[in-house]
């Protein structure tokens, strides 16, 4: 990894006996890498930014070997080549417009300690990319014409959208907040502080009444939305600076309560990562993942295997940071 800092120390020590990580996750990820260096959502499918970013983050957190190092280098190279001129990343190489995966591309390269310029350009794009809702004219039009009983939201708070020019949603906002929190070593654009404040505000505004998050609809026509595992885990990871807030604690309670009912390995891995980061007790993950793997082999889904790999690796600095001093 020319010129880049070394991987975090924690990544050098895979816990002994972590056989699912070593026997399933890492071999799967290395064998699923495409000849161009990227990963698709499944082995043999088109390279795409999301699975490539998750695969790189999983490999970065695992035990080091020459083979893994080479896979990481090739993957990072594909990511750098895929970045668009405006600093964003498209979902797939060849697409002309950047989208939500930009945060993931930044996170992967920054964690690997490579291509700081590419990361800075990506972060700058994130700070300049506003969602479609919430601007002055949009708010005026919304106030005049919308049926106010449909949705209750505070449009002052804005996060990040899945596609440019559309509404803020929980997951892309969480990804962007995690990147901005990780990228503090870089000289961040002036707007970063404002974007973090508005993004965090948007997440709290969209929390389900009983705790937890779904994609971002906490209340429709007066009926409370049901929280979901994935969005809840990502939102709680993004809001780590506010661990003591009752909203965080209530949402953690919901996630801990839900844990035993989780049927999908991706959701299980994300819930485990989140609860561990927040110091909540969790049952051993490996037997549960092994059981689920026997069912459908995780549908050969690269991000799911990568999340399982991250969950089984020692805590990684991009996921867990020291609490920020909040003024």
């Amino acid at each position, binding site marked *: 990894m020319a010129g880049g800092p070394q991987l975090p120390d924690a990544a050098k020590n895979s816990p002994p006996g972590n056989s699912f990580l070593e026997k399933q996750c890492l071999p799967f990820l290395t064998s699923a890498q495409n000849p161009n260096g990227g990963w698709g*959502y499944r082995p043999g499918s088109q390279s795409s930014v999301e699975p490539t970013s998750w695969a790189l983050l999983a490999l970065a957190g695992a035990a080091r070997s020459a083979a893994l190092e080479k896979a990481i280098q090739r993957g990072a190279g594909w990511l750098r080549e895929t970045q668009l001129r405006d600093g964003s990343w498209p*979902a797939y190489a060849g697409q002309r417009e950047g989208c*939500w995966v930009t945060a993931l591309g930044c996170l992967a390269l920054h964690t690997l300690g490579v291509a700081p310029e590419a990361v800075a350009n990506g972060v700058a794009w994130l700070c300049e990319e506003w969602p479609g809702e919430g601007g002055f004219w949009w708010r005026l039009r919304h106030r005049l014409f919308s049926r106010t009983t449909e949705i209750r939201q505070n449009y002052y708070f804005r996060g990040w959208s899945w596609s440019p020019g559309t*509404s803020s949603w929980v997951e892309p906002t969480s990804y962007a907040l995690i990147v901005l929190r990780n990228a503090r070593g870089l000289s961040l654009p002036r707007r970063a502080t404002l974007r973090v404040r508005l993004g965090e505000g948007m997440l709290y505004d969209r929390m389900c009444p009983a705790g937890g998050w779904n994609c971002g609809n906490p209340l*429709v026509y007066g009926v409370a939305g049901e929280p*979901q595992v994935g969005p809840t885990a990502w939102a709680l990871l993004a809001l780590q600076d506010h661990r003591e807030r009752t909203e965080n604690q209530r949402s953690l309670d919901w996630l801990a309560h839900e844990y035993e009912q989780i*049927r*999908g390995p991706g959701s299980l891995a994300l819930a485990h990562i989140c609860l561990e980061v927040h110091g909540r007790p969790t049952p051993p993950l490996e037997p549960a993942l092994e059981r689920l793997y026997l069912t459908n082999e995780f549908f050969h889904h690269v991000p799911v295997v990568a999340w399982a790999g991250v969950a089984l690796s020692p805590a990684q600095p991009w996921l867990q940071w020291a609490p920020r001093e909040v003024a």
Partner: protein
Amino acid sequence: MAEKTARPLSVSFARAASRVAIRRAENYQADLSGLLFETLRELDPPVRGKTVLLKPNFVGLDALGVINTHPAVVGAAREAFLRLGARSVMVGDGPALERDSEAIVETLRLRDHIGGKLTETFIDLNVDDVRRVPLRTRASALKELYLPETVLRADFVVSMPKLKTHHWAGVTLSLKNMFGIVPGNCYGWPKNILHWAGITRALLDINSTVRPDFAIVDGIVGMEGNGPIQGTPKRCGVLVAGDDAVAVDATCARIMALVPERIDYLAQAAYLLGHIKEEKICQLGEAIATVRTPFEVLKSFARLRENR
């Protein structure tokens, strides 16, 4: 390789009448395979030697099957198409709100109904390979979409929605169900770009570009009120099937005691995509009047009711 975009559009007066079958099915323990096989044999869809993609409406983690197309109906349709000589029958969906498709199909126990390994019969369209497709109409400003290869390569696409009301579109049936082919890996969860493009307009563009060849609606237990997720279960006891998705949806609307011509997207779809008028729909099986079950709609859609 067959391409879904190849099926021609035609104005309504130039089309032959469509055929829609209504079958009674009291519950999900009934012999749905036999019922659907007989129905399909009568409608005779051209599936011999073809690859068939069943596109159910899988929305979320709901074991009772009220918000999702019931897996028993999906399994019965798969068996019926195989018996009719289809080369392969895959099940694929891209849920709009829940990324964890594996959790959805496991909660539904889909494996118990479609047999074999799920990894070989179910495809998550949200994470499938994609291809750029210019849209065949310009109802919305979208112009093009990236769509899943599995959908574009299938010879025969069957839309399999649940009979539900919808808080933004009025009803969600065969045409609205096609939103689920738009991949989350490009457009997110939900596919918010379609809402910003306008639900009605985006629906027309998607259905004109990837036209469902057939539709089977699970109306055994539907949903009324604040659908498609937070509504109330409504027992209706029917399966509705046909080779024209517009005609199937119009028939379903009439069963729900709603006026199809007042449902924006359906009225507009009738120009190019299928028949909405009763006289242009050849009804098989039960008559609408015998299975008619009025569905509650939100106040904002009260104008859709028959007696308004």
